[in-house]
């Protein structure tokens, strides 16, 4: 499994805790950085002082975020040389057609609706994590 970090962009602390728990339960032990709003996500990704030199191997992105919303973050990620090929999985409560469509239009690799039931939620996180970090062949460095 690649040990490149996961960037979790999520403003709801409960969802952050549940996502971290689900990753841990499924033995996905990559380092994880958490951005609790869109502006912080952009800072972690692009600000020289904050940016991780290796860059994330996977970005889990919520859509409804304070300050800079998820779609805008996605747009910026795809518009920048350093991040345009990083897998982005939109992880949200919404299953509105508009949200799904605009996520794909902005270059999301996948769109997953967070289930309410924790067992299903953990299963979803596990599937996403295993696929993008283990099964999927990443872009060569």
């Amino acid at each position, binding site marked *: 499994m690649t040990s490149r970090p996961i960037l979790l962009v999520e403003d709801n602390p*409960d969802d952050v805790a549940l996502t971290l728990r689900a990753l841990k339960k499924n033995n996905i032990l990559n380092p994880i950085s958490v951005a609790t709003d869109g502006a912080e996500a952009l800072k972690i990704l692009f600000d020289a002082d904050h940016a991780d030199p290796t860059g994330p191997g996977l970005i889990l992105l919520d859509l409804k975020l304070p300050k800079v919303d998820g779609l805008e973050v996605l747009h910026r990620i795809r518009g920048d040389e350093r991040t345009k090929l990083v897998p982005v999985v939109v992880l949200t*409560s*919404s299953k*509105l057609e508009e949200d799904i469509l605009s996520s794909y239009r902005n270059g999301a690799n996948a769109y997953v609706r967070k289930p309410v039931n*924790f067992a299903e939620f953990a299963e979803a996180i596990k599937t996403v994590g295993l696929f993008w970090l283990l099964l999927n062949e990443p872009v060569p460095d």
Partner: protein
Amino acid sequence: MSRDRASARLFSAIVNSSDDAIVGESLDGMITSWNPAAEGMYGYAAAEIIGRPATVLCAPCGEGEGRETLARIGRGEHVPHYETYRRRKDGTDFPASVTVSPIRDEAGRLIGASSITRDVTEQAHARTAAEVLHRADDLRRANGSLESFTYSVSHDLRAPLRAMSGFSTALLEEYGDVLGEDGRGYAGRIVAASEHMAALIDNLLRLSRLSRTEMHLDPVDLGAESAQIAAELQDADPGRLTRFTIQRPVQVQADRALMRMVMHNLLGNAWKFTSGRDDALIEFGTTPAGDAPVCYYVRDNGAGFDPAYSHKLFSPFQRLHAASEFPGTGIGLAIVQLIVERHGGRVWAEGAVGSGATFYFTLDEEEST
């Protein structure tokens, strides 16, 4: 004298060439004069209408108004022009703007009244069109706020539920032994309740989306759809002994996906409420109905319902059975009603406790297809 004659001729020329109906009537309400425009507007020739009561020109909703106006004129009151409905010879009505003024003899005594009537059908249409546009605008605005409401329902209401379910599960998994049996039971209830509420929210969203999706009418065989749904129900619970009697074909003109949802809900309910019976029987068929060309029904011999509450069956989230007995979110029949009404039909139910239920519906009552 010749000046009088000249002015009389002029007056008569104005009356005869007017586009408005100009009608004279005597004090007792009989028609005394009738211009060509009146003939065009009402369809009566002067010869057949003069001498008849002016009330024949009033539509039922304007009856009495003529007599009252005449009485006011008689008292010397000024009557401002007003809008009303008038009736043509062929029995059809039209919106009219009417001005009534007194006719006096040389001594100034009141001898009758003349009314000038203008057909305002076009203005009325224009007004209706403006109202429709205004209403459409209101609807668009309401739909916009419904859209953002839907968004927050789908997004914001689910997040706390996920936390409730997630952290109760965490308690169970990590502190289950400390909680004891009762504690584990309580945490389990929180998990179940949050999932139930998530299902309610999803159904509410489905209901709100249903009322806005576009319909595509195609020929649909309700019998074939029912048979397929029956097979799916049987497959999901192969141990159950249930007899289905399904009339085929039952051709209708309807939106296939929506009608499938109707049949799915009705047959699924019948399936659910007959679960306690070894001799369960579920029927789908058609029957002649009073005012509709045909009426469709789904009948079962299951738990039935108390007819005293039948009016509540179709309200969202109304349930007539305990969730422990028959699970559900109480949205299925509200969805059925919404879809049937969007097809121009009605749905109603008959039943009694312990002796089954029959759900009837019609489609497109206006058109007899």
